[in-house]
């Protein structure tokens, strides 16, 4: 498959300075990769806001913080609205060349935080909103969110005799945010760091509401060995169950278009959350994938 370059980053001369370390996340945490890489591109003039979630609980506990940039914790539903106020104040104060960054999980974005995010997008507030999607409420112990994929086991969507995990399709955040006609919106994966970082760099250079939805595999919640976060991220994209895309200037485009998909089993079989699945389930997921991709190809340039 072909990777389409987005924005040139001089990777060789990228700063060694880490703006996030010492966090108490689980080993192999995909969300940590996302935030660390994003801060590398956005730099020290970033004002970071995180709601109550994994990323806040593992980084900030008085008197310690894992961030070397200004950062705040806000309420679970309030990422979009808090950064809206921060951006308004930055503008009122004439602060230039700063980035107001919100980072929230899938629950804090697609569920309880959707109203505030929608408001910030509709007003085109000058913010970047990064949703790290580990596909369930992981901080509270693996409960289903509206971004949990079909068939996944969680503690609130049991699987076993007569139960098949989540039995509805996930919410498509990318489409929802693109429908706000924001200047920039993208999906990404921590397993494709170049693509992800280039999207962050591109977002940084644009004014207005920018949204990046990055898939961030979670060994604890998904149930795979901690060293396989990148592997599962690549399998998700390779099997067509996650896609890398952008929305800009009113147009959507795919950044990566697999000619053939890897079998969905290659992604699903090794994860505890899909352990209950049978052959029928794989074929159903395959069918859903093909339908989704037919739609994607129809409306996106690649």
């Amino acid at each position: 498959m072909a990777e389409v370059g987005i924005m040139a980053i001089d990777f060789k001369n990228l700063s060694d300075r880490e703006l996030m370390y010492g966090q108490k996340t689980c080993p192999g945490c995909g969300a940590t990769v996302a935030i660390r890489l994003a801060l590398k591109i956005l730099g020290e003039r970033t004002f970071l806001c995180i709601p109550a979630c994994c990323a806040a609980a593992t980084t900030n506990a008085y008197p310690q913080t894992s961030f070397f940039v200004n950062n705040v914790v806000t309420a679970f539903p309030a990422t979009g609205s808090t950064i809206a106020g921060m951006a308004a104040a930055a503008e009122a104060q004439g602060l230039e060349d700063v980035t107001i960054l919100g980072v929230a999980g899938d629950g804090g974005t697609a569920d309880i935080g959707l109203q505030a995010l929608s408001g910030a997008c509709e007003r085109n507030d000058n913010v970047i909103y990064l949703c790290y999607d580990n596909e369930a409420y992981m901080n509270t112990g693996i409960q289903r969110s509206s971004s949990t994929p079909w068939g996944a086991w969680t503690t609130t969507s049991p699987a076993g005799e007569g139960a098949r995990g989540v039995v509805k399709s996930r919410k498509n955040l990318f489409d929802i945010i693109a429908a706000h006609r924001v200047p920039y919106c993208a999906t990404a994966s921590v397993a494709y760091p170049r693509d992800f970082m280039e999207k962050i760099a591109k977002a940084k250079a644009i004014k207005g509401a920018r949204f990046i939805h990055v898939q961030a595999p979670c060994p604890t919640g998904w149930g795979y060995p901690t060293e396989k976060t990148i592997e599962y991220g690549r399998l998700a994209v390779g099997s067509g169950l996650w896609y890398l895309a952008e929305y800009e200037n009113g147009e959507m485009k795919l950044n990566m278009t697999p000619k053939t998909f890897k079998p969905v089993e290659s992604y699903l079989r090794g994860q505890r959350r899909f352990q209950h699945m049978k052959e029928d389930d794989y074929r159903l997921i395959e069918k859903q994938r093909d339908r989704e991709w037919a739609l994607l190809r129809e409306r996106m340039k690649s």
Partner: protein
Amino acid sequence: MNEKGNENENGKEKSEFLSGNEAIAEGVRLCGPQVIAAYPITPQTTLMEKLSEFAADGALSASCKFLLVESEHSAMAAVMGAAMMGSRAFTATSSQGLLYMCEMLSYVSGSRFPIVMANANRGTATPWTIFGDHRDSFAMRDSGWIQIYVESGQEALDTILQAYRIAEHPSVMLPVMVNIDGFTLTHTYELVKVPERETADAFLPPLNTFNKLSLEAPKCLSFAFWPDYHLESRCLQQKAFLDAVNFIERTDEEFYGLFGRRYHGLAEPYRCEDAECVLAVAGGVAGTTRVVVDKLRAEGRKVGLIKVRCLRPFPMKFFASLGSPCQALGVVDRDISFGLEGGLYTDVKASMYKPGAGIRTLGFVAGLGGHDVSKADIELMYDKLRNLADGKPEEEHQFIGMRWA
């Protein structure tokens, strides 16, 4: 009375015929906030509309950003975001909107952001009502906000100026909720003196706080605390409230020096010197009660009024120091804490408590959901206090003005 005359030394003021909401908007304009975020709700709406007009006319500071947000929760989160950046911020709400932003109230107060909010007091559903009582703000009593209740449009304007001064003082650093009775004050017009911007600036210096994010000295705000620090942080919050008592009184005196109007800090006694029967009230009902006190005084009855201006911090010392000649004290609550009594009544009794104290008390619940509190109702309350003082039987807790007795 509250005024020392039309002229004062330091500032010219123009008189305008304004509604309570418009008076607050004028107060906000004079304080020059950098960020305003609000969401419409009756009866706050005309305040938000007036601020929108100011913004459109360039009457607010040139750099002021007005965020039209998607909910009250977002309104409070947005002004918190602005305060985190070190900007002066304002929002306003009412009733269900206040309840909806409840979560953010404790975020703001715990992290000590000096935000000022106006709340147009309105009952809470259900029964659904747009009309006034204090059950919205009383439900937020323990949210960590200073709560001030005003009696008039003039006091509302003046209290907004005082509120920022109090909130932003380095030894206070607490958010302030300015409560104004929905409709009876927000939508009624009176002649209001509007100070000049220069005088307001002399009273309220620019916000200068260490409690903000900074490129020079990056920090983390609204931290998580593990149990080992939590108790101390709450102790400091309580200390700030207790310290605020003196500062609220001092601010009122300084305001008097500059503008010639004062509101007596946390509580104002009116004709209480030799009063035997006294009513304590908060909000606009104080205005009606003044009229009744004057009438009964003219008839030779020894009655007085205590206007409770601050619910938090509570005027504990004021009530603790009440003694003879007061024989009977009644409290008018536009609130009820189901299963106990009116919330103000509980606080007043607790403050007055000392073994063997001689003052008898009655709790009156009135004016819920916009129900009128008439002069006749208030006279009836003074009659009941007289009965109590004379040793006649009275139920301790009574609803006043019901269709059945």
